[in-house]
């Protein structure tokens, strides 16, 4: 995938995902002018009219939202939204192709870190190693979307296996950069992981916004590793 195609695909996905977030905000009566303007920027970005201005506008609105809610409204998903917008904005502001590519490469590296770091901090924690931490998430955390899901807390073997599957996937994720097919398979697995989080814990925004960063990583892998490591 070329750099231009990657940037455009990221922008298109971002436009739809931010529009979805904005409609949710409007439905619960949050600052109509702010989220209305955000929708207009998304429309411009999707159809490619005033694209760079729309991206900078969306970035500016994200900063205003940080002020309005005194922090992220939706934790990590808002942080990822701002990170992607920042990288895409910088790619448009870059004086030449090298710096534009660096902006998108930063996003790709952060996506890899998002999996590796969160896997590493779990795998060194005895509570996660035993499956107890995931059991606690189901038993008393604020995340399960129904009381019925709390019964999962007692499925110790299933949670032990799920914990290790997630930790290994996250920690080994950087290695998949060495091979394009391995990366594609890993991205399918991480997408399935986000999907399960959306179903069990209602984290729908995480699912969509993390997908928006995937094209940058596919491009990055091709750009850096496929050139550096010849395939025999």
């Amino acid at each position, binding site marked *: 995938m070329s750099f231009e195609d990657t940037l455009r695909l990221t922008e298109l996905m971002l436009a739809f995902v931010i529009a979805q977030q904005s409609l949710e905000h409007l439905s*619960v009566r949050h600052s109509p002018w702010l989220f209305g303007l955000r929708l207009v920027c998304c429309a411009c970005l999707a159809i490619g009219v005033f694209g760079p201005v729309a991206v900078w506008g969306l970035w500016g609105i994200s900063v205003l939202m940080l002020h309005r809610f*005194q922090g992220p409204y939706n934790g990590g998903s808002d942080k990822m939204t*701002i990170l992607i917008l920042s990288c895409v904005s910088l790619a448009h502001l870059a004086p030449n192709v090298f710096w534009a590519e660096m902006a998108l490469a930063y996003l790709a590296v952060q996506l890899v870190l998002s999996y590796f770091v969160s896997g590493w901090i779990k795998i060194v*924690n005895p509570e996660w190693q035993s499956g107890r931490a995931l059991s606690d998430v189901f038993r008393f955390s604020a995340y399960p*979307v129904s009381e019925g899901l709390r019964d999962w807390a007692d499925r110790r073997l299933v949670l032990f296996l799920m914990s290790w599957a997630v930790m290994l996937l996250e920690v080994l994720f950087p290695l998949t950069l060495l091979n394009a097919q391995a990366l594609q398979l890993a991205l399918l697995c991480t997408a399935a992981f986000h999907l399960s989080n959306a179903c069990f814990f209602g984290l729908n925004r995480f699912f969509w916004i993390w997908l928006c960063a995937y094209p940058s990583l596919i491009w990055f892998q091709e750009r850096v590793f496929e050139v550096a490591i010849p395939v025999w």
Partner: protein
Amino acid sequence: MLLSLLRLFGLLLPALIPSWRFFKTVAPSPRVEYRLFYRGSWGEWCEDRPRPARIGTLQMIRRLFWNPAWNEQLFMVSCSERLIDTPTVHSAAELARRIAQTLPEHEVDFQFRLVFLSREEDQIIKSVEYESARISRAEALA
């Protein structure tokens, strides 16, 4: 002005250089409870926006595309945690406004509290970490 900008930069920085430490530990988890002041006395505490007993597969799929109420509930969890870690008028006001929106539409006063659930050995422990003053519904919505 300078302080506001610095604070805003402090909020922006973790998004530009994220730590990605999701679920390092399972921290004590907040629940928001409220009670109404009615005819000169306080009523019982009740949980704000209790979870449904079950959610069907179709509803789960629908929520993948449209989940504003749950995302608002997650914001209330963030506000509850912020209110304990770094208390601000903003967090208390955001919680009060969202509770007030669900109350019956007549003049009523209410109070809310934050109950944190945690595990000690095999027991789930509940502790009340914050209790608001008496708030009027109209004031909370203003």
